[in-house]
């Protein structure tokens, strides 16, 4: 049991001591607005609504999902 708990804790311990492998000064590409999954929430939310109303699959849409409360 102790070994299992220790092995489960290892990634967490490693995480605490990890130096970020992408340094802050290397993040200028990621900060570019074109690197956002959804740049404009109002437009992305609308497309999710269109899909959810016409397709049976729902959920895991990312930041703009959540159910439209409509039939």
């Amino acid at each position, binding site marked *: 049991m102790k070994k299992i*708990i220790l092995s489960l*804790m290892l990634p*967490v*311990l490693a*995480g*605490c001591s*990890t*130096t*970020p*492998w*992408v340094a*802050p000064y*290397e*993040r200028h*590409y*990621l900060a*570019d607005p*074109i*690197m*956002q*999954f959804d*740049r*404009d*929430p*109002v*437009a992305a*939310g*609308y*497309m999710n609504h*269109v*899909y959810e109303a*016409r*397709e*049976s*699959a*729902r*959920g*895991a*849409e*990312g*930041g703009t*999902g*959540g*159910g*439209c*409360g*409509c*039939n």
Partner: protein
Amino acid sequence: MAVTELRSYLTPARLRNLLTGLLVVLCLPAQAAVLPEERVDSLYHSYDGGGVTIDGPSILVRKNIGETVSLSANYYVDMISGASIDVEATASAYSEERKEYSLGADYLVDKTRLSVGYTNSNEDDYQAETTSFSVSQDFFGDLSTLSMRVSFGNDDVGRNGDENFAAEATHRRYGLTWNQVLTPKLMAALSIETVSDEGFLNNPYRSVRYLDPTVEKGFSYEPELYPTTRNSDALALRAIYRLPYRAALKGEARTYADSWGISARNFELRYTHPLRESLLLEAKLRQYQQNGADFYSDLFDYSEATNFRARDKELSDYTTSTLGLGVTYRLPGNWSLLSDRNTINLYWDYMMFDYDNFSDVRVHERETNTLGAGEEPSYKFASNVIRLYWSLWF
């Protein structure tokens, strides 16, 4: 586990180890959670296809109070007119309106973002309220973000023209998203979400079709009947990559399954390309493929043939293919309001729906028709979806 068993398991040494572990988790270098940008978006949206037109405005305002609180409000309208193929086959064209109000608040506590939201949707025959709560935390040196979200919805369902009809439905959603920076040019997100519905889940106007040798057409209609519970799971993986020149490629894959026997998967590829400083072009391809519900049939063998029955085309086997194109233009400073960052955006999506086992029964309305029940061609149609909006940041 019984309480006595738990007590015997939690010896002082084990308890100490557990607390140490918890402290280790709490020491995670969480940081730099930020509030969303302050902005106003004014959107005109339009969906036109399959005999139906739905359009209207959507206004989203987001404003921060100090450094830790962000408030948002959204007003959204769907104006619906026309007649989809279901309506055309069994009823007459109609028009209606749905209005939706949403309020949200985000609160930054050290490195954690807490959010609450409330949405109210109202139409003649359907009222819905949804409350949501989410928590988001950055850690591992700003490279990871974990978000958890729950929402609870209550719907009141009515039926126009039938004052005695009243039903309810509840919806619960539990979602988890892990965002991860993988390299200086690559970011990925893994999302899972479980949705649980209970109550009246079918559309009170839709009908199923069954073979009926007593009528000339060879088939008749009766009301749909769905199960009163539905549980679903969805898993999605998204990634976005910065190309060697200034452009981005986004990929998305999602898989879905539910207790009605529906399984689905969709894939999307999006390319974003800035052109000079003020122009952004975007192209998108998306495909969605679905295997329908266990209780779906285009034509049942006889009346009340099964315990549950549906002929809703959204519960059938079908494929949707979408091509999307869009442009964002940043207005010159002297044309902008409140700040020098204003954009005008126009996005067009062309969606093609191709049904495998949902027939176009409108052939029976033609005088030249020689097809019998069950011999009709499969239904297919295309829709144009427009998003035209003005965004300003302040």
